[in-house]
């Protein structure tokens, strides 16, 4: 029976409305609702699809205040067998950056003694993809990113994973355990929660790990982050980038133009009017120039 931990995050739904017109030190997120990170939900669904309940017990784990219980209940209703939340009254929500969260998760995972750790590859809000690899480092486990299929190899306790590689191809990798695996959003579709599962999940207990349970000092957790956030600015517009290295280095004027968003000037105009033969020829010449053909 395999012990599997799926790390999930309760975060603000970044697909909701945020409008940033001017630079600001703090983003107004009052219109966003907390949800289960879709990549984490896909991770849970993938594990449940690939590993049957009699072969592996899944514990979902999160770091968060009591409001994160909602997200754990969703997981319990869609395939998880038990749930653990890590929180201590001494924690400050603003100090919970990826580094501190990874440290807390790793201590909880060591306590739960898991062989396979799965999490979403990135969150909606931060999209840094830091937690998965950080867990592998802290637990000294094998790290495999962007997996969309997993299977237990009978006999020697290793597992087979399909990892996303270039251009939609997949690498088949065999790995020993313990392993930390990250899953992209879209790798598996979570099932729709039925009323029966939802009611059953509401009654299941959620274990709470605080600092004492984890045998951890609060000074380890509230360490300052390496980077300071200066401000939030509106997103930059798309600038035209050259696809292949130019034959001659760009002049200073061309470089300025590219940086300001106009695109490096091209010899031919980029709008082609004329007969279809001419248009088709321009298209093919363009693809050749871009080294696509």
């Amino acid at each position, binding site marked *: 029976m395999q012990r599997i931990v799926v790390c999930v995050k309760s975060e603000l739904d*970044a697909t909701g409305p*945020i409008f*940033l017109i001017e630079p600001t030190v703090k983003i107004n997120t009052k219109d966003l609702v907390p949800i289960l990170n879709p990549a984490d939900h896909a991770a849970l669904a993938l594990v449940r699809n690939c590993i049957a309940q009699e072969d592996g017990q899944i514990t979902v784990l999160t770091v968060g205040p009591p409001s994160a219980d909602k997200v754990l209940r969703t997981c319990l209703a869609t395939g998880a067998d038990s749930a653990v939340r890590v929180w201590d009254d001494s924690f400050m929500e603003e100090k919970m950056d990826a*580094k501190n969260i990874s440290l807390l998760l790793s201590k909880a995972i060591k306590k739960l003694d898991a062989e396979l750790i799965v999490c979403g590859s990135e969150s909606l809000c*931060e999209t*840094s*993809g*830091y937690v*998965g*690899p950080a867990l*592998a*480092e*802290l637990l000294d486990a094998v*790290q495999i*990113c962007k997996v969309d299929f997993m299977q237990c190899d009978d006999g020697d306790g290793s597992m*087979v994973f*399909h*990892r996303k590689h*270039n*251009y*939609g*191809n*997949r*690498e*088949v*990798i*065999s790995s*020993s355990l313990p392993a930390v695996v990250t899953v992209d959003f*879209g790798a598996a579709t979570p099932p729709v929660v039925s009323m029966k599962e939802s009611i059953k999940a509401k009654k299941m207990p959620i274990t709470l790990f605080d600092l004492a349970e984890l045998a951890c000092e609060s000074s380890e957790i509230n360490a300052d982050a*390496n*980077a*300071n*956030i*200066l*401000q*939030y*600015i*509106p*997103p*930059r517009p798309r600038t035209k*980038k050259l*696809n*292949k*290295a130019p034959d001659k*280095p760009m002049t200073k004027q061309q470089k300025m133009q*590219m940086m300001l968003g106009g695109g490096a000037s091209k010899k031919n105009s*980029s*709008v*082609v*009017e*004329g007969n*279809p*033969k001419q*248009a*088709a020829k*321009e*298209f*093919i010449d363009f*693809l050749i120039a871009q080294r*696509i053909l």
Partner: protein
Amino acid sequence: MEHEIWVWAEYLDDEIRESSIEMLGEARKLADKMKCKVCAFLIGECASKYASNVISYGADIVNIFEDQKFSDFGVETYLYPFSSKREPNKAYTIFVALTPDGLALAPRLAAKFQCGYAANAVTTILQPDGSLKTTVPVYMGKAHCVYRFEMDDTTVIAMKPGSVGVTGADEKRTGETVMFDTHGIPKSKTQRKGYIKADPNTVAMDETEDVVAAGSGFKIQTDIELLRNVADILGAVVGSSKPVVDKGWIPRHRLIGISSGRRISPRICLCVGISGSSQFIEGMKESRTIIAINKDKGATLMKMADLALVGDLYEILPEIESQLKAR
């Protein structure tokens, strides 16, 4: 404190990856301002043959780790060159491109060195006081967060391929190459068992390199065959805008636009008969090259495209097909 700039130069199919060339360009710009050296790491089974190429793209020193153990990518083995070269009294800025392998290595490096990490960085600008200002997209690209990293600390900066553009090679550049002893490499805990090639009919939209999109310009369903023929020759995947998917002509998982929930960033996006509603453009504006075919010269997408072909798609597409076949 002494500072060094590191770049992981990856290679694929017998040449240095374009994304690594971009990283070398960024590293070179920063190094020139900071007056320090760019150290490129070439790791692999036959890494040394790319050394002169890497120097011409901006490296001052190339650290070569050549061993059969590096033939397949494994995070644990690929960490070894970086951790073995790290010196305690130096600070580093490490540039890694977010290729499938770089995506696994970059945050792991940051975790191993317990240092700052900027993922999907858009710009990195050296400030007059010596700190580094990095801009990173957050909340699904709706805002950019500006971070400040001190130059006395090590930082890992990971950038998406295609975000900065390649610079030219300077063949006259000289540099040093150093071969390293690889006896201390840890044994890999993973083993590559096989490789599955993508099937263009089933591959996901956000993973494919070339995309061809059909729009409302097509009058009946069978006309989309014109586009499919071109797509088959180019090896591209056929997607479409929302009106076409709503009519049922193209399956839902091939939708491009906000409603699909994903942003695609292929190498080329050929949009045929699409005017360019904001929802569609949001879903594909990250593409490296946009080519549009439309009768209407003033359509939003035509103005945004890198190449705009004005004309009737019913005439242009067969021409493209026959000219491609004639090559």
